[in-house]
């Protein structure tokens, strides 16, 4: 089982999501006079249906991932994202009737305060800003390959969320270069839907808009139990001239290290992005992990692993996307073939009509 899925399975059961949803419910009660014509709260997110076959075992996951965003006056913003999914597999692995359960997780539920042009202060539960994958690519309507990279849990401690406070902003924001920073502290929590570890960390990146190149580095220190460090680096390149995207990350944890590099190429140059072929997007991801020492429960493969993922995505009209991929995993603990196919629909609409 891959890290992100095993992490989700550890989440609390579906009925407990009601607690988090109740907390988000206050967004629906916002006084209208605080909101201008363009600032009506939104409900966004996606619904999806995932099918995976890993070493011959098939399982389905219907997913609902709503995002709620609501401005509160001029300087505050409340936002949240939940992940509600069913997990269905055969009773005896590859035989017997399908049976399953629902799981839910609060991925973020945070209040942002825009203190200054270069400073935003966030409090609550937020996505741990280690590397780029967790913050930018975990949304089911964004990810190009269904499964998270093998090194996902380095720096994010498998849940991917932190409870505490974060400061972030752009130190330098010029047309030629942006230098961004993020610093955070997370408290330990075992509360349902808000499980997190005590940790602190930062991320710095330099982005060159003219070239659409970004390089950055991340650091995190786990501050409960056995303290340990995680560090990482990332590189993104998305040239203006053609629809190629190259993303990569390297991360080093207490017991393992690894990297992934992902490349996508939308065939939009063949008669435009809305043509039959222009909607196709081949994806390739190469990843390796190297185990330095045993680290039970760290969400990483138990032995050195090499995995190649070959994906083919199709961008259907009306925000519907079909993702498919085949992965070949090579490991001392056993090689595996992994097949994934998913259908997602992304939605975005205002919560109410608002002032005209």
């Amino acid at each position, binding site marked *: 089982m891959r890290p992100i899925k095993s992490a989700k399975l550890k989440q609390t059961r579906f009925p407990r999501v009601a607690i988090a949803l109740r907390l988000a419910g206050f967004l629906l009660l916002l006084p209208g006079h605080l909101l201008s014509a363009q600032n009506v709260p939104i409900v966004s997110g996606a619904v999806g249906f995932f099918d995976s076959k890993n070493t011959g075992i098939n399982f389905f996951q219907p997913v609902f991932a709503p995002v709620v965003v609501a401005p509160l006056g001029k300087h505050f913003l409340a936002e949240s994202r939940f992940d509600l999914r069913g997990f269905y597999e055969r009773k005896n692995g590859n035989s017997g009737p399908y049976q399953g359960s629902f799981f839910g997780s609060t991925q973020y539920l945070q209040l942002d305060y825009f203190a200054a042009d270069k400073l935003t202060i966030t409090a609550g539960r937020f996505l741990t800003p280690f590397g780029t994958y967790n913050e930018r690519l975990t949304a089911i309507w964004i990810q190009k390959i269904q499964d998270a990279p093998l090194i996902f849990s380095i720096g994010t401690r498998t849940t991917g969320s932190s409870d505490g406070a974060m400061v972030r902003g752009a130190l330098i924001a010029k047309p030629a270069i942006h230098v961004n920073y993020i610093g955070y502290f997370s408290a330990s929590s075992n509360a349902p839907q808000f499980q997190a570890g005590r940790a602190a960390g930062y991320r710095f990146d330099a982005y060159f808009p003219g070239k659409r190149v970004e390089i950055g580095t991340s650091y995190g220190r786990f501050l409960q139990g056995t303290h340990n460090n995680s560090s990482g680096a990332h590189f993104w390149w998305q040239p203006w001239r*053609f629809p190629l995207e190259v993303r990569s990350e390297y991360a080093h944890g207490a017991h393992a290290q690894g990297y992934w590099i992902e490349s996508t190429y939308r065939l939009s140059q063949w008669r435009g992005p809305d043509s039959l072929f222009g909607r196709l997007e081949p994806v390739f991801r190469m990843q390796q992990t190297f185990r330095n020492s045993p680290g039970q429960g760290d969400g990483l493969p138990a032995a050195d692993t090499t995995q190649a993922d070959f994906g083919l995505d199709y961008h259907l*009209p009306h925000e519907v996307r079909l993702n498919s991929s085949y992965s070949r995993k090579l490991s001392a603990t056993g090689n595996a073939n992994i097949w994934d196919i998913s259908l997602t629909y992304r939605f975005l609409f205002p919560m109410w009509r608002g002032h005209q």
Partner: protein
Amino acid sequence: MKNMRSNSKYAVLPLAIFLLGSLLTWAQAATSAQSAGRAPSAPHAKPAVTNPGERAFQANCGRCHNPPEQLSPRITGTVLRHMRERALLSPQDERDILKYLAP
């Protein structure tokens, strides 16, 4: 150990396919540009983005996701604030994108 070495050999194959694919893509792009009478240095160049808001959108938001197909003018401010926090937009980029999304 022997098994891991064997695995490393397998890993070279997809990497080689990826590099070969990239090379072919580049070659195809360069050939098409030349046949269309363009400078080889600008293969399949996208139409120049002159709108600063569109450029700011593509330089920031568009790096992770496609633009929404429909966007109600009532929520452009909310979406922009969300992106300001997510993508660390500068105030100038935020203003430019707002003008682009809700002219």
